[in-house]
């Protein structure tokens, strides 16, 4: 994913590393840019499902 603020490209897993030390321990559902600290919500399950479904449909064509 790409940070909407500083433009850094990073994996979602790298974005979760900033959660260490926070009381909510990643339960807030936010992904933190490892470079600038900007936060965006993790992709919703429904959005992931739609993307997977569209990819499958495209591949089967």
């Amino acid at each position, binding site marked *: 994913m790409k940070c*909407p*603020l*500083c*433009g*850094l*490209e*990073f*994996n979602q*897993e*790298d974005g979760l590393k900033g959660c260490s030390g*926070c*009381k909510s321990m990643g339960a*807030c*559902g*936010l992904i*933190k840019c*490892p*470079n*600038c*600290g*900007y*936060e*965006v*919500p*993790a*992709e*919703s399950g*429904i*959005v992931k499902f739609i993307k997977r479904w569209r990819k499958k449909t495209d591949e089967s064509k």
Partner: protein
Amino acid sequence: MAVNLNRKRPQCHGAADMEIDAQRSVVLVGSPNVGKSVVFGNLTGMYVTVSNYPGTTVEITRGRLADDSRAVAITDTPGMYSLLSITEEERVARRVLMENRPDMVVHVADTKNIERMLHLTVQLLEAGMPLMLDLNLMDEAERLGLRIDTKVLKERLGIPVVATVATEGRGMDELKKMILKEDILPSGPPLRYPETIENAIADIERNLDSSYGISKRAVALLLLQDDHEIWQMVRDREPERYALVDAIVKHARERFVDPLSYIITIERQRFINTLIEDAVENVGVKGIPLRERLSRLSMHPVAGVPIFLGIIYLLYEFVGVFGAQTAVDFLEETVFGQYINPVANRIVSSIIPWKVLQDLFVNEYGIITLGIRYAIAIILPIVTTFFIAFSIIEDTGYLPRLAMLIDRVFKKIGLNGRAVIPVVLGFGCDTMATMVTRTLETRRERVIATLLLALAIPCSAQVGVILALLSGSTKALGIFVMVMGTVFLFVGFLAARLMPGERPLFYMEVPPLRWPKLSNVLTKTYTRVEWYFKEVLPLFILASILIWAGRITGLFDIVVKLLSYPTGWIGLPPEASKAFLYGFFRRDFGAAGLYDLKTSGALSGVPLVVSIITIALFMPCIAQFSMTIKERGWKMAVGMAAFIFPFAFVVGYLVNLILNGLGVVL
């Protein structure tokens, strides 16, 4: 011309397994989006090997370049911004450099952003790499009026420099020739740091016996910048000297107020600035693309202000007028007013015979008629429109420009443009923003930012409801923005004077302006609304239950009565004190309470504006307060709350006095 790569799909073996018949090895490195893969494709042609780096899902691509006399194995690494790794991709790219000991490293850079690209060039030189600089995307730089004197770069950096446009094949023959023919020797570090850091580097170098695949100077610099992977390596390879190295780093850290990574970056930036001054000329062109012109204007200290105000006005029209009037009216009056609330009241009354229990679910303060109604009929349309607008602003790349614009103003209040991150996040959720203040460089900045977040930055739902409350009166909106802006700057200015300290420098990469994609905006909005509701709905329900319990025990009425005194002092009706009580649970819950009072006709004109200003300045919600305790400690959190509570009412009182004194009618 994009190059098609006939990719063998990832195999689960490491880069080391992939033997390519060649006399020398070359590694391509560079940031994402600099055209590195196109350069690689041009160099190696159709057949490449793609494999996962051992133990990761990060792909490494390898290919071969050959002429009659020599064959070269070329490795394309994942995008890296810096040797100081943050992401998995960067760590893998660094490991490839450290483990492969290439005969040549080609740094592929985006010429139009040469200033920020040179940071990696400097680090690779410090790492003792046999380096060549490929200034790619030269055509885009030329279109922007940039003229690069490659000779100056060559001389000053002591490395070969080649200009390319890989997509058109321009300069690729020269690059191929250099890769095949040139034998490059490491040219050494291009700059020296302050004496304390240089001494620490020398001390660390003396204590490192093992080989790391990069120069000991680079290892020392990474240790000083607190790179966890390098620390682990030193712990494993120098068990006897580790404690000594640790002591050297700690001693160096103690000599500076700011973190060493910050000092080192600023020194590199100074070196790069002098280099850019001599090697880059901005001749300007008649036809600067509209996008670039807009980008420059949005950061300009004068032109940037009306652009910012224009964006705020559009936000107000979309969120305050469309979202908060049209959509809220429909959901509040039609959906809940005519259908859900009467039906819920009827059903609950028929099922539950006891009035006390009925009140838990329905009637004036029930879970359904208050908690869920606030969440769905008032907050949902407002936050949805706000998040749509915010996603558009975010996707255009405006936020980093806003950071650059407000850097000057923020410096006056002891902050810098970097603080735009928590401040902007505060408009989403102040609790999370308070946590993000830890990314600020100095303690002084962290304290000032935390105070301003708790005092003068309303969260997204609160902004939405406030816009809804003020819709229809631009004068009222103007007064609100002016008072909040003045409070923000005044308190920030005072705090900066009370806590003297260094004014930190600010440097931020500014990505290009771009058109937002509809699918991206919708995806982000949905994700944010879903995230928001997961968090907010249980709290709204909990607040309804607490209010219900408070009413049974009589505690609710006592607190409302107590709060009615300060609300009365600032000219508000007694009912407004309930909204302030709600505000303790959540800021938006309190603002939604004011919305209810406005629609019932109990609040309008000057008292409405006064109440909005007071509730916007009012105490942080429970979640933000507990986050402030965690980040800044008990004393600081309680101190801030003790300041904010009376301060909000004093400001409300003064605004009421001034507006009435001037005979303002709203």
